[in-house]
């Protein structure tokens, strides 16, 4: 299982702030996890489809499509940051 967190406008459009996902064998990195979520369709496709302005972190460090994901990881998806 991994924990997936969603923040800000993405949290609102997806209607949830976190979930537990059992990793299928096809998911081994951030890109394949994102594809799994996009395949849910609807708001998931609208918010996470390729080209959408989404940033991601794995275990609380900024990550990219080829960042590996393993059981026990904490993954987060969010829009570009706007603090300060």
């Amino acid at each position, binding site marked *: 299982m991994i924990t997936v967190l969603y923040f800000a*406008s993405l949290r609102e459009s997806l209607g949830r702030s976190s979930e537990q996902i059992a990793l299928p064998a096809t998911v081994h990195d951030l890109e394949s996890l994102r594809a799994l979520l996009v395949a849910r369709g609807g708001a998931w496709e609208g918010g996470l489809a390729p080209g959408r*302005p989404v940033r991601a972190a794995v275990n*609380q460090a900024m990550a990219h499509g080829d960042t590996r994901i393993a059981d026990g990881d904490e993954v*987060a998806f969010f829009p*570009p*940051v706007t603090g*300060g």
Partner: protein
Amino acid sequence: MTVKIQTADFDVSTEIAALRRGNPKVGAVASFVGVVRDTNDGGTVAAMTLEHYPGMTEKAIEEIIGQARSRWNVLNVLVIHRVGQLRPLDQIVLVVVAGEHRGEAFAACEFIMDYLKTRAPFWKKEQTGKGARWVEARQTDDIAAERWRLKG
């Protein structure tokens, strides 16, 4: 080095005094205060809510401070960032850098702020006359952060 994420307001002179207390090597203290404005993108802002990613936000700012310390000789750094609901005139963020000389303190303070704007996970949602809206990231902030990569 201190990083605080809090809902409470802060007092700049109290924080600066604490940062340099008892350290006679400090010859310069540079600080930046970010404040909530009542307008943004042509609309009126009545209030805003700041959301963050507990845990990662602190780590990201500590990482930015670490980069600043590797580039400039600074003696101490404090970053306070508020979260929750804020109103126009409220203070949002404080960056204080204490160093031996002003040049390095100024540069490190600006660097930390520019990197915080583009790398620390915070998100602003504004309450405006036309309803609530999430603030969109600005390309000018990316440019401000990027120029530090070009400086030696």
